[in-house]
């Protein structure tokens, strides 16, 4: 058998063979025990070798060796003081001498069951002891909440935040569009949306009773934009543009109407007449011999 490299943890005085396996399953328990002992002996020998390899200091009783830090992590044992206790729903109230519930309405140790609080020497006259108790309770609750928050922050810093808790800032998406960012709706936005939703009834939300505190919608009706009534030096350029545009459209639409059809027809007719007259003049003054002569003989029909 070749020398196997064992994992030796001197801090715990431990030796471990990671490659060990049984060649054949031993037949009996005694066989198994014998094999294990053999293996164990080898490992102990290896540990002893390692120990003697360490540098030793001389002491009265003999050489002393400081063991190095242990490399294997062992699970630590539970803290002794933390024990879980179960509290019942009902408990015996000392003040009233009855069984009451621990929390909520009609609970034990309630301030209103205290008939009288004895004054101490440190108390000032004119102070309300019950009021003081109330303030102190409030302070305690605030302190508790603050401590809780601080603990969570510390845990987040150390990377040990409980899985169900997630800080709001870390929940933001890193990449993506602006629409992916969760935006907090403001009060006005919610009111607007609620108002718009309320008009989604058959009669436009006119006859629905309003809840107490619900204000009527501010911007009802269609949104219309108008040019300013008066602007700076005289008529604003926008108004001029608008009027000019509309004027142009009107003119263009009726441009065919501006033409007087009757007049155009008479003018055309007059022109035509004049042209014909001119042509007739030219014909009369220039007789052409090439023109075919009209025969004076009438064609007779032979029966």
């Amino acid at each position, binding site marked *: 058998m070749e020398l196997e490299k064992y994992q030796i943890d001197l801090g715990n005085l431990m030796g471990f063979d990671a490659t060990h396996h049984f060649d054949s399953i031993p037949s009996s328990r005694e066989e198994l025990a014998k094999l294990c002992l053999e293996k164990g002996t080898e490992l102990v020998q290896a540990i002893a070798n390692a120990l003697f390899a360490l540098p030793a200091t001389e002491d009265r009783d003999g050489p002393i060796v400081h063991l190095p830090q242990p490399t294997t992590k062992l699970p630590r044992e539970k803290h002794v003081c933390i024990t879980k206790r179960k509290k019942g729903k009902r408990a015996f109230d000392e003040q009233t001498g009855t069984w009451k519930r621990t929390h909520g309405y009609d609970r034990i140790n309630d301030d209103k069951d205290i008939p009288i609080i004895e004054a101490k020497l440190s108390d000032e006259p004119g102070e309300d002891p019950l009021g003081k108790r109330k303030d102190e309770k409030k302070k305690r609750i605030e302190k508790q909440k603050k401590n809780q928050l601080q603990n969570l922050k510390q845990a987040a810093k150390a990377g040990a935040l409980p899985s169900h808790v997630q800080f709001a800032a870390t929940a933001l998406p890193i990449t993506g569009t602006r629409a992916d960012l969760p935006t907090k709706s403001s009060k006005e936005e919610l009111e607007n949306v609620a108002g718009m939703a309320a008009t989604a009834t058959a009669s436009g939300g006119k006859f629905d009773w309003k809840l107490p505190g619900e204000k009527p919608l501010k911007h009802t009706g269609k949104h219309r934009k108008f040019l300013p009534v008066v602007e700076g030096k*005289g*008529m604003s350029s926008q*108004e001029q543009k608008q*009027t000019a545009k509309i*004027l142009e459209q009107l003119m263009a639409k009726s441009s065919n109407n501006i033409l*007087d059809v009757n007049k155009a027809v008479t003018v055309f007719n007059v022109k035509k007449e004049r042209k014909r007259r001119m042509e007739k003049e030219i014909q009369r003054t220039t007789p052409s011999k090439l023109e075919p002569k009209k025969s004076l003989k009438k064609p007779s029909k032979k029966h």
Partner: protein
Amino acid sequence: MRTLDEKETAAVFEKLFKFTGPNLKLIVERPAVEGPAGDDPGRYCFRLHKNRVFYASESLVRRAVSVSRERLVSLGTCIGKFTKTGSFRLTVQSLDLLASHARRKVWLKPTSEMSFLYGNPVLKSGLARITEGVNPGDGVVVFSMSDLPLGFGVAARSTQDCRKAHADAIIVNRQADAGEYLRNEDDL
């Protein structure tokens, strides 16, 4: 008081165009008579107040802005008003403006002037003169023989048809006349 939006301006201009034709440009781009002297004179503009359309110079509008809405009664010249359903009607107060830029005119005989001012339409018997080229459906301004504008309306017949028509035929359907100042004093 506010400016007119595009649709409203288009409606107003269309009605005016029926009477003035291309002269509408002169109405819209008229240099103001009043206003700060020396400076480039502002133009005339249209403003809407309580469903009435007013025609006034810019300097007048600027001064009128300081009057509150409930207190403002009128401004410049009222030319017409928008009805409940949103259509625009010219009123008699626009007569002066239309008369100076009218394209088609009709002159009445002195005998039928009163009839027209009482609200009756113009008949062939009352017609003295009419401009050439009037088509049915055209806007027409009615004058007396002394060139005094009496009212306006819509032509029912063309100029040629007028000559052929018989004496009782309606030539002009009256839309507004100067007699309304007495008859419909409250409406104006």
